[in-house]
């Protein structure tokens, strides 16, 4: 702390520091400073995302492909994209979505909603079946008894494999719906819960460091960049 304060002279740093403190004030309780930061944040960030959506999604992927001349407006040296009339479909669906703005045309918006729900169903069904069902079973089919190179039983490793297999199956049992969790079945399911709790504890423990880093870098900004203490 030898140097003492060396306050920053940049307006942006001061704005950033003020906003940081306003957000942190929430930790004490809700207050006018937090409220102001929150309301500005909502307005700016909503508009920011909308602007990016317009210029980086709608413009190049829809407008420029329906009206190739448009591409030149944003990138003069660009090669004109080829027409893709099929893009009229999402544009029409998008316009139907706006039907919600008027009570009499609300029903129109159910078509684009249906399209969206259809994509969620279609995209995920096979993907999850492959990567979370087949792949997990595939990598779970490992030997439960491991022999050392000398032909003896590797006790520790075998035990670990057996625990892994047993824990997985107990966990699966926990998730069953159509059998009441009573008696032995309940004990197996309970063991499954214990395994899952260990899983959650592990993930939690591993995440703490990443979260602390975020605070460290914010405090670096406040103490260093703003106050010049370090």
């Amino acid at each position, binding site marked *: 702390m030898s140097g003492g304060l060396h306050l920053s002279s940049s307006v942006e740093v001061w704005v950033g520091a003020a906003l940081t403190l306003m*957000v942190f004030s*929430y930790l004490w*309780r*809700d207050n006018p400073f937090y*409220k102001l*930061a*929150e309301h500005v*944040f*909502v307005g*700016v*960030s*909503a508009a*920011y*995302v909308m602007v990016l*959506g317009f210029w980086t999604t709608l413009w190049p992927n829809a407008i420029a492909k329906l009206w190739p001349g448009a591409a030149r407006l944003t990138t003069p040296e660009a090669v004109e994209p080829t027409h893709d009339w099929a893009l009229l479909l999402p544009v029409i669906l998008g316009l139907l*979505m706006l039907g919600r703005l008027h009570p009499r045309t609300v029903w129109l*918006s*159910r078509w*684009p*909603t249906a399209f*969206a*729900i259809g*994509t*969620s*169903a279609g*995209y*995920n069904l*096979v993907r999850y*079946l*492959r990567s979370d*069902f*087949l*792949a997990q*079973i*595939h990598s*779970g*089919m*490992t*030997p*439960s*008894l*491991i*022999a050392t190179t000398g032909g003896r039983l590797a006790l520790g490793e075998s035990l670990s*494999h057996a625990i892994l*297999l047993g824990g*997985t*199956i107990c966990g*699966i049992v926990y*998730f*069953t*719906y*159509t*059998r009441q969790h009573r008696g032995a079945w309940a004990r197996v399911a309970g063991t499954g819960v214990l395994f*899952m*709790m260990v899983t*959650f*504890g592990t*993930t*939690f423990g591993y*995440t703490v460091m990443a979260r602390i880093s975020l605070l460290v870098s914010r405090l670096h900004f406040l103490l260093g960049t703003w106050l010049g203490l370090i």
Partner: protein
Amino acid sequence: MAGWFEQANWNLALFTLILGGVLLASIRAALRGRVPRVRVLPGVAAMAEAVGRAVEMGRPVFFVPGTRDLDNVQTVAGLAVLGELAALTARLECRLEVLTDRSLVMAAAREAGRAAYLAAGRPETWRDDSVSYVSDDQFGFVARVDGLIARERPATCFWLGAFSAESLLLAEAGSQIGAIQIAGTAERSQLPFFIAACDYTLIGEELFAASACLTGDPALLGTLRGQDLGKAVAGGALLLGSLLATAAALTHWPFIVKLQSALQRLFSAGGP
């Protein structure tokens, strides 16, 4: 055939057909009266009570159907639960506040809410603006929701859908004001935080089962029987695969080795 069907994905196709068939058969059986008795999920059972608590306290219920868009199946599962909860808030005349960070989700949530109030016989009490859009920005959304929680002090918070790092930012804010919180997500990295901060958490697949359990609709309950049969396949395959792998490694008998590699191929997730 070669040009029509991706042969590398034969086992994926096989399992799609098997699971699809099992699910369809379970639905059919349930519709014919063989409705499975489903065990009570504590998180689902607590939902009605949690809404009732809000009515008693005269405070609102907050609902967030995740923070991803409508193409995420968890969002849709959250909305399915919202449909059932809205029917409840309609009957109990409880204030429902749905906050979304995607416009498409907002539209779908309004549709679900309106239909639920209509079905509950109270269409006149439904207001579209009880579902509002905040901001697509992850933390802009959180800033608003946390602020609202501190100000409106909801009695109950539902966090049902796909969440990222904001899970704990939302759930801690709710815990600070002592709200009853019921969460559910299939994002494995966020489950620990909901478990730590919420009263009830629907773990992974339970999120998808919640709407079925709430409605008690025979067809939906039928799919739960189908899912359980899928679990039997998974557990059986794991046991058999392990057994064969052990036998193959210890004995090296050609027959067992062949059988084991055949089973491995059946569950291979490779392909293009």
